């Protein structure tokens, strides 16, 4: 037992030493996963998040004259390590956490209100947490997975010439057999009944991500008119390859917003035509990226590989950090404080309003669309577009597609209510509201 005590002693001292941070800074921890089975996606996201915030520090001296203290904590996409990261950063007074894993987000949701640390789970996590009245501390802009599904269906309908033309069509749904992939199932079911299309389900178990031939044999048998994918990590390149092998028409294969360029590239020329949703650009031709190059990358302060800058997931990291930064800036504006805390940033995020003019100031004109959150709506339900893989990169091919918010909202409301009931006693919202919608 002696060894244990020594080890514990070490850990104690370390946890006491660590919070010795400069007072005049805002602490932003970044949970990242540069290791583990999903490192391929995680590395780019981590770099994008890190580089944008570093750029603000280098270029502007932080936000509102306060430096950002950025600290990465490696989760390896593992829930247990993620919680450990949370406990490790908690004493240092983080203004928010970005769990970057649904598994880590779920246990943090009830803690957020108690620890006064807002959660920004950008387009992942618990869909119902879009309901700000039930989840005042959780934000998941700009879309939920249900929004995503509705936009894919709308895109498919547009190809067919209208929602009523979906009748009698067969739509296949290939998904990671985990909470994330299964979440849209009830919604898809509802849509199929409404519009009269037939849904075909192809679950891929997490440990069989790279062994999908059985699922694709089923695809061959069922011959769906369109395929929708909610994949993750190594599941995505494997699916694209299998689609090519099965001679599935790539133009009719549409994914939610997670695949990278590399995921498609693996299948070579055959992957041309593969489509994904997105809400931001997938190139580096924007002033904001130029600034990152100038202030961070060229100074050797970035871990990112040069050719990954401006790719889908790098830009997603940038977008995520933009939300972080704007939330902090807003908080400063509302409270008049320079050094804001978690409670302030919660208000800042809730009154987030990044309009076209603000995007232009940020050097993100055309990079993404405006977003506005309210106390009731912590998501935004922003439109997305479809991008098509051209063999090298993704090219935007549609205009903005609005989600079926009218169909999604009742589900979200019901889910939020069910969550609060199952987790009774769930606290009633008492937090102040700065922006009534």
């Amino acid at each position, binding site marked *: 037992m002696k060894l244990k005590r020594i080890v514990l002693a070490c850990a104690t001292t370390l946890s006491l030493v660590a919070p010795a941070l400069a007072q005049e800074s805002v602490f932003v921890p970044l949970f990242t996963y540069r290791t583990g089975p999903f490192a391929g996606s995680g590395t780019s996201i981590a770099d994008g998040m890190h580089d944008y915030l570093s750029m603000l520090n280098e270029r502007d001296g932080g936000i509102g004259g306060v430096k950002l203290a950025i600290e990465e904590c490696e989760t390896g996409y593992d829930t247990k390590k993620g919680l450990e990261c949370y406990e490790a950063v908690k004493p240092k007074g983080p203004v928010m956490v970005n769990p970057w894993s649904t598994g880590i987000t779920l246990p943090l949701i009830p803690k957020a209100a108690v620890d006064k640390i807002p959660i920004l789970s950008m387009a992942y996590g618990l869909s119902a947490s879009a309901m700000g009245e039930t989840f005042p501390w959780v934000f998941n802009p700009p879309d939920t997975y249900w929004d995503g599904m509705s936009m894919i269906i709308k895109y498919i309908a547009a190809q067919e010439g209208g929602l009523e033309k979906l009748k009698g069509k067969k739509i296949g749904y290939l998904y990671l057999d985990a909470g994330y992939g299964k979440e849209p199932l009830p919604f898809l079911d509802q849509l199929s009944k409404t519009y009269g299309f037939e849904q075909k389900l192809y679950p891929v178990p997490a440990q069989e991500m790279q062994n999908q031939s059985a699922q694709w044999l089923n695809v061959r048998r069922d011959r769906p008119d369109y395929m929708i994918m909610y994949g993750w990590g190594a599941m995505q390149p494997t699916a694209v390859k299998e689609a090519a092998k099965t001679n599935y028409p790539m133009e009719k294969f549409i994914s939610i917003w997670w695949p990278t360029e*590399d995921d498609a590239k693996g299948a070579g020329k055959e992957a041309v035509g593969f489509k994904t949703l997105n809400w931001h650009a997938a190139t580096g031709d924007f002033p904001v990226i130029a600034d990152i190059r100038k202030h961070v990358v060229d100074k050797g302060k970035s871990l990112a590989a040069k050719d990954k800058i401006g790719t889908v997931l790098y830009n997603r990291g940038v977008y995520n950090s933009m939300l972080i930064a704007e939330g902090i800036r807003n908080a400063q504006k509302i409270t008049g404080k320079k050094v804001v805390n978690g409670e302030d940033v919660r208000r800042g995020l809730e009154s987030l309003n990044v309009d076209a003019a603000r995007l232009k100031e940020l050097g993100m004109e055309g990079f993404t669309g405006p977003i506005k959150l309210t106390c009731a709506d912590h998501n935004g339900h922003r439109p997305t577009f479809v991008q098509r893989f051209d063999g090298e990169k993704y090219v935007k091919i549609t205009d903005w597609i609005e989600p079926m918010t009218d169909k999604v909202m009742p589900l979200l409301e019901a889910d939020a209510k069910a969550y609060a009931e199952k987790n009774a006693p769930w606290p009633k919202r008492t937090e102040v509201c700065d922006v009534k919608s």
Partner: protein
Amino acid sequence: MDILYRIFIDPFVQMGGAPDLLVQTLWEGLVGGVLYALIALGFVLIFKASGVFNFAQGIMMVFAALTLVGLTEKGVPAPLALLLTIGVMYLLAVAVERFVLRPLVNQPDIMLFMATFGLTYVLIGVGELIFGGNPKKMPTDALFLPSGAIDLKILGGLVSLQKLDIAAAVIASVMVAGLAIFFQRTRIGRALRAVADDHQAALSVGISLNQIWIIVWFTAGVVALATGIMWGARSDVSFALQVISLKALPVLILGGFTSVPGAIVGGLIIGVGEKLGEFYWGPLIGGGIESWLAYAIALAFLLFRPQGLFGEKIIERI
């Protein structure tokens, strides 16, 4: 009644109704089975010669493929990278012999088994440390592996055979044949068989056990490399492959731990069995049963024939 119909009749109706799909399913199963068989082959080689149940065989496959891809990504021409990787596998064999097998000789089997867990973790760590954890693409063209498919218009439908899969089957057969010749015809091969039969006997004819272990582990390493290339070309090379490689374990139960033909036949049975199961029966219980079906087949097998397909009946001596 309906449920009985769907379990016992409907799948066969489907098979008869679309024979091309049945053939395609069988083919996919066979190809998957060949890859399982190759991993199992590595196990068998090592188990026969050193009595070690090498849990790290799966990770050796990933490690070998990762080394190859990592080197080509760093700009090494593919053929040279292949040679270098083979060299790395040799060094690995030497290191394993020196730091794991030699100190643990005469320890209970279970100790050696657990040591290979340690080896697994070391290999994962070292591999990621050097080459990073991102999934990597296998440079199939540079390795002269074919791509594309042969589409056969038979059975009133289409059966599509990937050239890559055909190549995998051919390479696997060549490798098995090569190993068979190696074991039957060469001096070292005969020595290896002698070790398998009796360590003492092998020592008495003047063969160094240490050398034999190195050779066996190296051979298993090369088999692992070939498997890694094949699987890496089908999907990407990443550490997530390791969990799939565990499927070689039920193959071993079917084939027996010491039988090379057993590994191959077992691999094919598991490969075909799980594809048929997933394709025809999986949808009945929600699909995704592939993750455990192989183990269930093996378990059922264990209860009726614990010694495997080709193993000899074990008589307990007291």
